């Protein structure tokens, strides 16, 4: 049911969920202490991990698995493209997550470069994903019965 790129994406997304929430907890704890802290810099990392690494990646992984398959060719589109999407997205997430930390170390140029890399990778990943999925946005399997009786519980 779940193809390997889909499993990789949902697995990585689950890891980003746990990491992103943990970083968010550290930032929130710093806020609770009520003092200005360099830990606040983790806020950008927290947001990048959760928006792209968790929410976007999980949705993409599930869409790859469950959208209607193609009638000809590879049933779920080109698997190599799906892997490229996975690689680009995670490279973008890691770059975007590390960038604020580089800025905190005073490596401004490196931070800017990482941020640019993150943006480019995220945009490319989404473009590749759209290319893979475009043809799969279609009518579902016509042999699936739509008039089955529905069991109603209490």
């Amino acid at each position: 049911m779940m193809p390997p790129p889909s499993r990789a994406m949902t697995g990585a997304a689950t890891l980003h969920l746990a990491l992103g929430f943990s970083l968010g907890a550290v930032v929130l704890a710093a806020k609770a202490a009520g003092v200005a802290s360099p830990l606040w810099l983790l806020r950008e990392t927290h947001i990048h991990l959760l928006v792209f690494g968790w929410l976007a990646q999980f949705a993409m992984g599930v869409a790859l698995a469950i959208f209607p398959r193609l009638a000809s060719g590879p049933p779920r589109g080109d698997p190599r493209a799906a892997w490229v999407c996975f690689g680009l997205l995670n490279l973008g997430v890691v770059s975007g997550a590390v960038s604020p930390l580089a800025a905190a170390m005073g490596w401004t140029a490196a931070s800017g470069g990482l941020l640019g890399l993150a943006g480019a990778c995220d945009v490319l990943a989404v473009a590749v994903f759209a290319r893979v999925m475009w043809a799969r946005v279609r009518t579902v399997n016509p042999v699936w019965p739509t008039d089955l009786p529905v069991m109603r519980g209490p």
Partner: protein
Amino acid sequence: MARASTGRTAISRWPSGRLTLAYRHVDLTQFDMKPQTRAFVRTAFVNLMLGTLLFAIGLVADALGFDARLSVLRYPAIHLIVVGWLTQLIIGVAIWLYPLPERPGSPGMNRLGWVGFGLLNSGLILRLAGEVGPAYGGGAWAGWALAGSATAQAMAAWLFAALLWPRIRPRSGPHARAGAPR
């Protein structure tokens, strides 16, 4: 076992009294929405409504000259929508639809989901209290509320990861066949 069949579709009543509906030998009743998923999804809807309402109040309170302190509601409102709605809905549906673990899960795994559910939602409530508290003279306990919220939500995320990790795998059985319904 009583069985009524029309070609590919079959309804069976098992000795236990349970009714199952199968299509091409795939038991469709296994996809019934379980109580845990219902709790996650319904709470997610409540959080969406609450988050939207609080965000709207936070937006207009300052602009329309109401209590300006209400503008602090925007941050926990975004949190309610992104964590309480989106994340909770995704986790609830994943618990429902993901392939079951290769080895049958212990009842403890189910309890883990409930603990995560409780931690996530209590973390959201504490976050709301911790953000709004200082504006209304609750500065003394607001820090503790935020710290509690941080701990509860981080623990919930790790519990969900532990719960879902063994279920990220190919589905075996009739679903894996090329001709299976999809």
